């Protein structure tokens, strides 16, 4: 029963996407958005139904193959579904945000000529993301992983006549390839060890290979499990945009805003975090891999947040915020607090999608203006957007009571109690990150909604209803979702059947029972006060004394320059790696392909034959007696051979 339902939930968006893609143009906009929204809605309802069924009866969790895709000798690769608590919570998040984005898109894209194409892509994306989270083996995970990558590529470059969009999608694609290479290497390593790609088998037998090593060179051996974890995390670094593979995410903001909300905030970029949680049985066996995860996550969390402080593009600020929050999730995974990580993933999906959609609402209201310096004082013109943005911002910085508060505080609490290597470093990183988060969030908020109203924005009014409804629908979980869910999700064992992690006692060093208990505990910690302090500072800097940021940027000019140039990562990649590879490819092309293969082997053979033949041609004088002489010469040589043979001189 549940198996068939999950199958329907998986393929509904696929069918809807195909229908919208093939028939959307002829059958019109109503059909297009109708069929795709219906597909995602069915999928969403089924997800909720599965959740309820599983909560009532945990025995219903299943792991079942749909069919065998390929069998080679004793190896068998299947397509299957694994639906447990982790999957179903991801399904709900994906479907809910996707549904909101579908509705939002009706308003956002209604004038765009690529309307049906857009709906086709986001539905297909939903399918790809669902197949990623519902897979029961690495092969299907990889399929979903690549499929969401392709959809992301297509959607970033959705406005394919815009050069910057083309460059951005190209960049995203290439950098994701680097991550995917690691992922497939990791998968290949696991396949070579276990001979199967099935999650269940690998997780159950992971402990038996803890002593296996991979010999990288004669003097350097590494535990194969650690290597596999590092390679898998390499894939996660690409998809979840961790340092130093983060550079594609800010550029991906060239795509339409609904995409930024759906793919580059709520779902696809969290695939890496999801994978870390799914692979917890492997990561738990390798503390060095966990430490690596922790360090990368904390560096990403703090450094990308700083970049958000200097950006003026409304979407890019939120994009850097996403990067930073992804760093938080990875940090949580690094200290084995997978449930806290997933909880943050979930709340983040809601409030970040909300923030993106609110930003999109502002952009639509200002006729596709994205520079926050040209905004200001919009709170009276866009009241609903203003309130929902405020909710989203408060949730993002972790204001007490909002969803982000619970998830982020739980996460930081887990880091503070962790004893993994580098956890102290991570703790300070995330604490400073809290301050930075509230600084850039409210900088954005104040610059957009407070201050004097610009003259050109006098006639601004709220966009249409289909844009506002998703904002409101997303604002509700952004505010309240933390209260009922933190207890079962983080403190209780909701994820026990899908994630292997220490008990919540060990993670938090304290036995929390419910959200109220946690709230009172957190108020005695520093995190909340740091966040509120950040709001006050940004109020001071961006509302009261507006000249201070300018002075600061002049005083700390070198530092400011580093930030404006995004730590020179783009320069590094373009000028060193890209140029290196360009030169390498050019020299291979010139020397290897043209000189050796073309000129020496292919054309060279013909040339040599030609030269040889043109010499031999001289023998073909046309005179019969020359030919006769040749014949006679041959006869003489033949006779000589016969003579020598008779004399026994040759064999």
């Amino acid at each position, binding site marked *: 029963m549940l198996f068939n339902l999950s199958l329907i939930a998986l393929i509904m968006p696929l069918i809807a996407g195909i229908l919208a893609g093939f028939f959307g143009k002829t059958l019109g906009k109503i059909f297009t958005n109708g069929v795709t929204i219906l597909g995602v809605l069915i999928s969403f309802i089924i997800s909720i139904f599965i959740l309820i069924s599983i909560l009532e009866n945990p025995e219903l969790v299943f792991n079942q193959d749909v069919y065998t895709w390929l069998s080679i000798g004793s190896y068998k690769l299947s397509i299957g579904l694994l639906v447990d608590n982790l999957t179903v919570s991801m399904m709900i998040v994906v479907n809910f945000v996707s549904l909101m984005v579908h509705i939002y898109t009706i308003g956002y894209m209604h004038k765009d000529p690529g309307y049906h194409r857009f709906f086709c892509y986001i539905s297909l994306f939903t399918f790809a993301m669902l197949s990623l989270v519902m897979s029961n083996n690495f092969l299907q995970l990889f399929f979903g992983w690549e499929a969401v990558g392709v959809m992301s590529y297509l959607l970033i470059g959705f406005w394919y006549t815009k050069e910057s969009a083309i460059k951005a999608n190209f960049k995203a694609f290439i950098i994701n390839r680097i991550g995917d290479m690691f992922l497939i290497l990791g998968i290949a390593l696991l396949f070579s060890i276990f001979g199967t790609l099935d999650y269940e088998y690998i997780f159950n037998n992971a402990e038996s290979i803890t002593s296996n090593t991979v010999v990288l060179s004669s003097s350097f051996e590494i535990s194969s499990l650690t290597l596999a974890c590092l390679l898998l995390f390499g894939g996660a670094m690409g998809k979840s945009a961790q340092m130093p593979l983060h550079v594609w995410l800010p550029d991906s903001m060239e795509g339409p805003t609904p995409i930024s909300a759906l793919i580059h905030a709520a779902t696809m970029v969290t695939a890496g975090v999801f994978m870390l949680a799914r692979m917890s049985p492997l990561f738990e066996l390798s503390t060095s891999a966990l430490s690596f995860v922790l360090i990368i996550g904390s560096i990403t969390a703090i450094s990308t947040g700083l970049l958000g402080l200097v950006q003026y593009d409304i979407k890019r600020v939120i994009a850097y915020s996403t990067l930073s929050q992804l760093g938080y999730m990875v940090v949580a995974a690094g200290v084995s607090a997978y449930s806290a990580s997933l909880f943050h993933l979930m709340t983040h999906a809601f409030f970040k999608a909300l923030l993106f959609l609110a930003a999109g609402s502002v952009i639509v209201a200002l006729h596709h203006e994205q520079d926050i310096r040209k905004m200001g004082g919009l709170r009276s013109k866009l009241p609903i957007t203003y309130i929902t943005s405020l909710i989203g911002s408060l949730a993002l910085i972790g204001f007490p009571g909002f969803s982000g508060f619970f998830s982020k505080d739980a996460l930081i609490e887990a880091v503070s109690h962790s004893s993994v290597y580098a956890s102290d470093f991570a703790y300070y990183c995330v604490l400073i990150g809290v301050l930075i988060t509230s600084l850039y969030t409210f900088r954005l908020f104040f610059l957009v909604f407070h201050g004097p109203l610009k003259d050109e924005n006098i006639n601004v009014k709220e966009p249409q209803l289909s844009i506002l409804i998703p904002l409101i629908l997303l604002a509700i979980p952004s505010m309240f979702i933390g209260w009922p869910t933190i207890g079962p999700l983080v403190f209780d064992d909701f994820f026990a059947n899908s994630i292997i992690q220490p008990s919540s006692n060990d993670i938090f060093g304290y036995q929390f029972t419910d959200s109220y208990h946690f709230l009172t505990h957190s108020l005695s910690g520093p995190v909340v006060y740091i966040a509120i302090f950040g709001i006050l500072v940004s109020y001071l800097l961006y509302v009261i004394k507006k000249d201070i940021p300018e002075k600061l940027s002049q005083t700390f000019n070198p530092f400011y320059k580093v930030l404006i140039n995004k730590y020179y990562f783009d320069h590094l990649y373009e000028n060193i790696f890209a140029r290196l590879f360009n030169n390498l490819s050019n020299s291979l092309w010139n020397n290897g392909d043209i000189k050796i293969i073309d000129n020496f082997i292919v054309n060279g053979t013909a040339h040599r034959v030609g030269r040889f033949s043109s010499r031999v041609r001289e023998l*073909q*004088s*046309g*005179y*019969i*007696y020359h*030919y*006769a*002489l040749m014949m*006679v010469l041959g*006869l003489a040589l033949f006779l000589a051979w016969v003579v020598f043979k008779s004399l026994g001189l040759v064999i």
Partner: protein
Amino acid sequence: MLTLQSYLSLAAIIFAIGIIGIVINRKNIIIVMMCTELLLISVNFNFIAFSYFNQDIAGQIFVFFILTVAAAEAAIGLAILVALYRNKKSIDVQELRTLRN
């Protein structure tokens, strides 16, 4: 004492002369054809010598056929020569270079 070797040696000398004649020939193709006849004669010598010393009439049968074919060849060759001369106004070996190009 006349042995088989004397006859074969004689044939070998005639054969070599024929070969030299084909190659050194200066002007006209008719000489080439005559040299071919010389070669055939030397081969016939071999057959007849073997036939005599082995007391086997089959060698002479062979010579008979060779003579037939050689006569036909001479007739056809001369006909070709006549046709060639009509077209080219020459049977000069050094001017007949149409084999090239």
